[in-house]
């Protein structure tokens, strides 16, 4: 085929450039964490140091923001997972003409810019006298994270054989027993996926959080303000940790996926 002769080398070069484009900036950012100057830089190289990591770990404000991020993340998981599950069940079981309309509204937060979700949440709850803070951040983030969680559950529920549920009922199980013994065990991996994705989405969120966090701060918001006011290689040290965790998680994820593929075969 003429593809292999003419296009293959071009494609190889293209891919090489593309992946350099993806990774070089991240690599430079990570390397700068080990350079001495107080402004993050790679050139000139003035000596290897780990002092930025030491400073980072001693920074009380960072630890506080990490704690806030964790609290918010857990709060979002506790809200978004049950909401996503219930909505997915409702949408897969509802046989009404209004179902597509309801579905459209429930996924719309995903297609709405994050700042707008933040703003509308802020305005709405200020009417009840509740201002920005951890609680409002949980609420604001849940608005759209629940949509993701719902889509994850829906994908799995559509693959559930409806006869399993009927079989359980037929064998004398109550509706609740059917859910507890048949449907929820079937959804167990989905619960884990939905919880992980909800937590990560919450942890990384910036645009919505910015409007509803009030005087508090999350790790992401903290990083952004460090970059804008008072940038030191501490941020780079933090990015090294982020990169490390992400690479590990991505490798595990890929291995698990591969395992699933071979299991399926």
């Amino acid at each position, binding site marked *: 085929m003429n593809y292999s002769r003419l296009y293959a080398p071009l494609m190889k070069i293209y891919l090489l450039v593309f992946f350099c484009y993806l990774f070089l900036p991240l690599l430079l950012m990570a390397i700068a964490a080990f350079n001495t100057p107080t402004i993050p830089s790679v050139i000139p190289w003035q000596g290897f140091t780990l002092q930025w990591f030491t400073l980072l770990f001693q920074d009380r404000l960072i630890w506080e923001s990490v704690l806030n991020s964790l609290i918010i993340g857990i709060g979002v998981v506790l809200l978004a997972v049950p909401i996503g599950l219930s909505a997915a069940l409702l949408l897969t079981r509802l046989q009404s003409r209004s179902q597509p309309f309801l579905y*459209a509204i429930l996924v719309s937060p995903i297609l709405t810019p994050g700042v707008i979700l933040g703003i509308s*949440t802020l305005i709405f709850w200020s009417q009840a006298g509740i201002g920005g803070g951890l609680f409002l951040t949980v609420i604001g983030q849940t608005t759209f994270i629940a949509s993701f969680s719902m889509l994850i559950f829906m994908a799995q529920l559509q693959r559930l054989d409806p006869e399993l549920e009927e079989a359980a009922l037929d064998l004398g199980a109550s509706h609740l027993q059917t859910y507890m013994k048949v449907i929820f065990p079937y959804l167990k991996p989905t619960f884990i996926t939905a919880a992980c994705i909800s937590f990560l989405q919450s942890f990384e969120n*910036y645009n919505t959080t910015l409007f509803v966090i009030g005087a508090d701060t999350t790790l992401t918001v903290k990083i952004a303000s460090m970059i804008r006011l008072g940038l030191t290689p501490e*941020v780079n040290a933090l990015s090294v940790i982020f990169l490390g965790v992400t690479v590990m998680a991505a490798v595990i994820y890929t291995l698990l996926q*591969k395992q699933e593929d071979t299991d399926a075969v």
Partner: protein
Amino acid sequence: MTQWQQLLFQNGKIMAVFMVALPAFWLVILIVAPQLMMIDFSLWYEDNVTLERLERDISQKDHHLFDLDDKIANLMDQGLSAADPQLVSLEQEYQLLDQEIKQLMLKTDDPPEVYSPKNYVYLAHNQLHRTIFLKTIWSSLMVTLIAMVICYPVAYYLAQVAPKRQATILFLGLIIPYWINEILRTFAWLMLLSYNGFINLFFTRAGLLEEPIEFLDGNTGVLIGMTYAYILFMVFPTYNLLQTLDRNQIDAASDLGAGWIRIHLRIAIPHAKPGLAVGAITTFMLAAGTYAVPAILGGPHSLWFTQIIYSWFFDGGNWNQGAAYAFVLLFLCIIFVMLMMKIFRVRFNDITRRV
């Protein structure tokens, strides 16, 4: 049978309540009511002119009150008895005025809300804001288009051409930057692009540049950073769709004499349409709605529409004006979604299934 009875019959009481109550809470309290409240906010303003007039009125009346007080005191000093008719009438006048002032004061506590399209008109008439809004649309469109062009070959290669092992490794190479925090991805480009950043230092030291380039003064930095930050949102949906394309279709087309370009135009791209639509919608929405990228990579001359919205809320303290701006942004995104559905001829369900 009503819908509720049907749900009850199928799921039992506890689960039916669970399935209705939680989504209802989400739908009403988290999604619909806040949006409606935001729209409501955008449609009125606090009438400051009336407020100022009121305050002026009050201060005038206050003066008058003082005068009266003085007069009464003077008359008392002159030895007039409290029962004197002149004094009684003055006293009455004083009381009335005092009441009136108190009532006016109450009004200023709760400034009048006037419903009008003023907040939107303000945007239409403010040339700076209007330009920034148009620039936001234009730049977001550019970012979307660039991302689509860059991503398509990568997605196609990964989905159709790459051998399995290689595809796994390349896929890993895509998810790592995808999972890195948006702020950090942007920060990486700050290090590259700033005046004393890597690119400038590297090229000036190598003698290829005489003067460092001011990437971050205008919009260049913002555009580059945004493309980098959101490009992967284009790769994955496109890849997902292309993966479902049956290899035999390509072989059949090739067998029938179609050239490589024709295969893409007639088979691969039409097949990938829903994926491209999702990618375009997500990228556009993220680009138009980003606050982080322009805040980090933008200079004083490259304000972004979201930054203006932010300042209405937290610097200007005019939430109504901010709400109107936010709604305009939301409206823009809705229009874009509808436009993409038209252009790519996909239904709403096709889109959301691929997010």
